[in-house]
């Protein structure tokens, strides 16, 4: 057995300037923007568990796509979208929704494993789907991310306030004529998209720390929705970029460092807020 080697890599600058690193940095930018903005809405709507579940529901889509020779993101996206619409239709009764969501989550993860075992290539990709592989993101994927981000920003420019109102204050928003059903479907569909583009970075298992945790940290720091979204995006970006740099210096998987940094930011903010409250 080889010994675990945590030694500093003096060649890290060279690693950072490699083309795959450039791709990872650019991808990180697009992922952070989408995750930061939608993370806020997810928390406001008490849908963090649904967001976590969507990544797992996407898993059989991803391994199934490999099985059929289709792009991983396509399979992931389709499954996440269908899952999102079904969860959205489950309504607001939290206890029932969570049980249904959790049950489907477990089943989908099992199905993902089954598909992965059906072919050797899917089996090989299983680990990168579960834990992410930000260093293997292709230029085509980045173009896809960019298109998604542009669509997201255009859509949000139109529905920002009604979506916010229905997320924070559903009953009043409904009385005031906000189409809350439409807002719910829009939110879940966008969420499926955000999960699909964030999974390549940290994988289905660690997605919570990338999409929800920065927004939770931002919520501690800011009381205005817009500020919180900006801060969440910055924190998410900082976790990804710093994670990439540190993973070039030390032999640790980027996913691990990214998730660790995101958790660390949150723990510091939480601790500071607790101290301030005393």
């Amino acid at each position, binding site marked *: 057995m080889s010994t675990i080697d945590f030694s500093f890599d003096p060649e890290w600058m060279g690693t950072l300037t490699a083309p795959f690193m450039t791709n990872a940095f650019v991808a990180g930018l697009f992922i952070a923007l989408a995750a930061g903005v939608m993370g806020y809405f997810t928390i406001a709507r008490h849908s963090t568990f649904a967001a976590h579940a969507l990544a797992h529901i996407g898993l059989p889509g991803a391994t199934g796509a490999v099985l059929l020779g289709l792009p991983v993101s396509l399979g992931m996206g389709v499954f996440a979208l269908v899952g999102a619409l079904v969860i959205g239709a489950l309504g607001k009764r939290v206890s029932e929704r969570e049980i249904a969501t959790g049950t489907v989550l477990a089943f989908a993860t099992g199905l993902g494993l089954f598909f992965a075992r059906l072919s050797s290539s899917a089996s090989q990709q299983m680990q990168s789907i579960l834990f992410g592989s930000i260093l293997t993101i292709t230029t085509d994927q980045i173009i896809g991310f960019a298109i998604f981000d542009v669509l997201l920003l255009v859509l949000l420019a139109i529905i920002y*306030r*009604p979506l916010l109102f229905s997320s*924070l204050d559903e009953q*009043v928003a409904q*009385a*005031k004529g906000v189409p809350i059903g439409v807002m719910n479907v829009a939110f879940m569909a966008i969420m499926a998209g955000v999960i699909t583009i964030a999974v390549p970075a940290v994988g289905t298992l660690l997605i919570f720390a990338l999409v929800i945790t920065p927004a939770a940290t931002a*919520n*501690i720091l800011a*009381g205005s*929705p817009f500020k919180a979204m900006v801060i969440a995006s910055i924190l998410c970006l900082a976790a990804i970029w710093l994670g990439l740099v540190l993973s070039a210096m030390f032999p640790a998987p980027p996913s691990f460092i990214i998730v660790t940094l995101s958790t660390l930011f949150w723990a510091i903010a939480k601790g500071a807020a607790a101290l301030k409250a005393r």
Partner: protein
Amino acid sequence: MSESSDCIVFRDAAVRRGDRIIWQHGTFAIPTGSVTAIVGTNGTGKTTMMKAELGLLPLAAGSLTVLGRPAGERNAQIGYVPQSYASDIDSNLTAEQSVLLGLTGTRFGIHLVTKAQKAKVREAMEFTGIADKAKYRLSELSGGLRQRVAIAQALVCDPKLLMLDEPLANLDLASQRAAVHVLAKLNRELGMTIQVVAHDLNMLLPILTGAVYLLDGHPHYADMGKVLDSDLLTHLYGTQVQVVTTPQGDMFVTPTPDEPLDQVQDMHSATEVAQMHHHSHDSAASAPGAGKAGAR
């Protein structure tokens, strides 16, 4: 009373949920500028009535006009504070941001918050006495203060009608007083019509002008003087209720078997009350029998 001076008009209205009729044959009008309470025991359809007035629940029969249009069409002119708004919110939103949503929350497209809108928000918060709490988060405020944030959010768009579902539930005595004071001021200074769903009327009695009471599956409306009747209230709440006149105004109290033995209570048996109700369905004040409230 002429049609135009009525804020809310029910005509043979009924609401159904599934196969169950919640209430029916509602025919009455609530005047503009009034402060009314919707009263009744649990499950008689008080919140349902408010939802129907907002057009969120379709009527099974009849018609319902609010601010001169069918229910739901004039909601932009209605401020609405839903039930348990104050108790279960754990929001990180600041009070100011929350009130602002009442002004801008329904608008699609990109709009920067204008100076005029900010001034409007401040004005609403000053009115409910929470201007100094603007930068506090809702999660940091007490239930009473959150209720006043909710009222500020409801009135920031200059509504003609304000609807509040159980605004005093879970509030302590001082917070209840403060909330009632805000409602009184809104009615007196801005002439706003106010409707409140309430379990306990005592706190609201000084400002109420009338009440909608849900009895035996039918809604009725009556002026406050007629509602403050021991017989009616006893029947309405299904437990013995007594109206007493105190120097502070009328109170209604619900004696329990744990009262001191020597206290004389003016009450009716259940059969007696049912009899009275049978004879005069929507005007219990004309029912025979003792135990009337003193005129206010």
